[in-house]
């Protein structure tokens, strides 16, 4: 749907508010991967992430009339995602897949597992700011955090992540 490419997220959601399903689909195609990746990092479970993604998309559609009110649409999207993740119990850490530890799959699984060891709020800040490139202010709105707290939480999360991954992980294909 190239006709929608020229419009911002806010414009697409405003059109969706008028029951423009094409605009809503374009918005989901644009932000859907980001949202699903956030869920995957937060939960470490792809199946659960897909379920949360579908649920949040439906929920966002119901809230489309007020979605862009008072800020960026992405902020509202990740606010909902953060709330859903907070309500969802984190699954038990999974074992690392067997095989070549330097493969993309192994490293990806190792990264997810390391993320699961970080506290939820810190993990959410890390995922938002570091992986999903959400600004600190927006992340604070998503988390309901005080000013400056998102930066601090993200830094703590990153330090925890590096510690959990260990030097071996970094040497497998990284520098």
């Amino acid at each position, binding site marked *: 749907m190239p006709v929608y490419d020229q419009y911002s997220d806010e414009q697409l959601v405003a059109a969706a508010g008028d029951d423009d399903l094409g605009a809503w689909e374009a918005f989901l195609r644009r932000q859907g*991967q980001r949202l*699903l*990746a956030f869920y995957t990092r937060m939960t470490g479970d792809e199946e659960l992430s897909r379920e949360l993604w579908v649920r949040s998309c439906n929920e966002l559609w119901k809230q489309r009339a007020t979605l862009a009110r008072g800020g960026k649409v992405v902020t509202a999207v990740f606010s909902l995602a953060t709330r859903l993740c907070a309500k969802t119990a984190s699954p038990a850490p999974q074992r690392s897949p067997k095989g070549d530890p330097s493969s993309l799959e192994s490293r990806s699984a190792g990264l997810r597992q390391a993320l699961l060891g970080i506290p939820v709020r810190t993990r959410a800040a890390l995922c938002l700011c*570091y*992986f999903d490139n959400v600004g600190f202010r927006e992340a604070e709105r998503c988390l309901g955090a005080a000013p400056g707290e998102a930066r601090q939480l993200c830094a703590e999360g990153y330090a925890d992540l*590096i510690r959990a991954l260990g030097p071996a992980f970094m040497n497998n294909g990284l520098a």
Partner: protein
Amino acid sequence: MSALSEALLFLDLDKGKDPLLEERRGALISDPRLRPGWLRYQALQALALETAPAPNEKMLRAVMTQCRREGVRRHLSAIAGGDELAREILLDTGPKSRGLAAWILGLLLLGALGLGWIVFQGGRAGMGLDTHSPEASTALFTGGPSGPVPFEFPVQSPPAEAALAGPVDDASASDADDVHDEPPAARQASRLLSDHLHEAEAREQGPDRDAPAAGAEASGTGQGSGADTNAHTVAKPRRAAAIKPKPTAMARPAPSPIPALQAGLTLSSDTLLPSASSGAAGLTPSAAGQAQAGPLDITVDMPRRHDIDVRLFTLAGKPARILASGAFGPGAVHLLLDAKDDTGTALAPGTYYLRVMTPWFSRVEPIQIH
């Protein structure tokens, strides 16, 4: 530098908007102490981005289907006034409601077809009228012999009188009339009564039923027979109702055989008022619906000259009095009904039925004579 300080530094370099950051990034890359950490920072981001799952087309389609259904359900809820019906129609609750929804849709379709037929018939007969409100006093008759004839129903009654209007007697009208407050059994009883009257009349009147009325004194503005004070009582009906002209009768140039009348006829033990003062052609009582002693003044408004038939029947269906039978109008036809039969003999006290037939409507009203 601690891990936390390093993380803060990298985050600021990554997300900061300082124009000097590019310069600082260049310095970092050249700094042998920070360079590995910065590269690791970027490499982890790249790894996460590379291995991020993407929603497949099936997921997207499922979501879009849900969104579409939710939008339709929202509109349906607004129309139907509730979520339940909308949910059932949208087959949200499984195979059982799927069957129910199919039934509902089928019934709606049948209803639409029936309504269309009624409108079609009404249009042919020029009777697409809603006479429920006094404002609905003007209509266009299109089915008459001479083509479209503008016709203004007489509206002579104030709202209070309209509220005392008599029951509906038209079959097609009463079915669609939402003013009825009688249970279906009452309507069925009225229908049976009307049929009974027709059969009795057909048996006993024979070929001379169209003969001029012997005892009736009726004309365009004629008066009825002499008054017999305190002979009977005229009073209010039980409920408000509207009169809808009979479409099938309108299509005929002359009065047809009595159509099947049905209305919420009420066997009144005390009072009776044949009132059609709701703005349509019909009967108008002389005392505006209030109980009175003396002859009953019946007014039939005729838009143009035509045959009418006004008779009084006993409960057994035997004609007791012919008030009018022949051509009358245009204008108001006043008929006086006292408590005597065609031969001038006083009628026995009891309940009788007054039937008024015009090309535009038919009506049966119970009358109590004391």
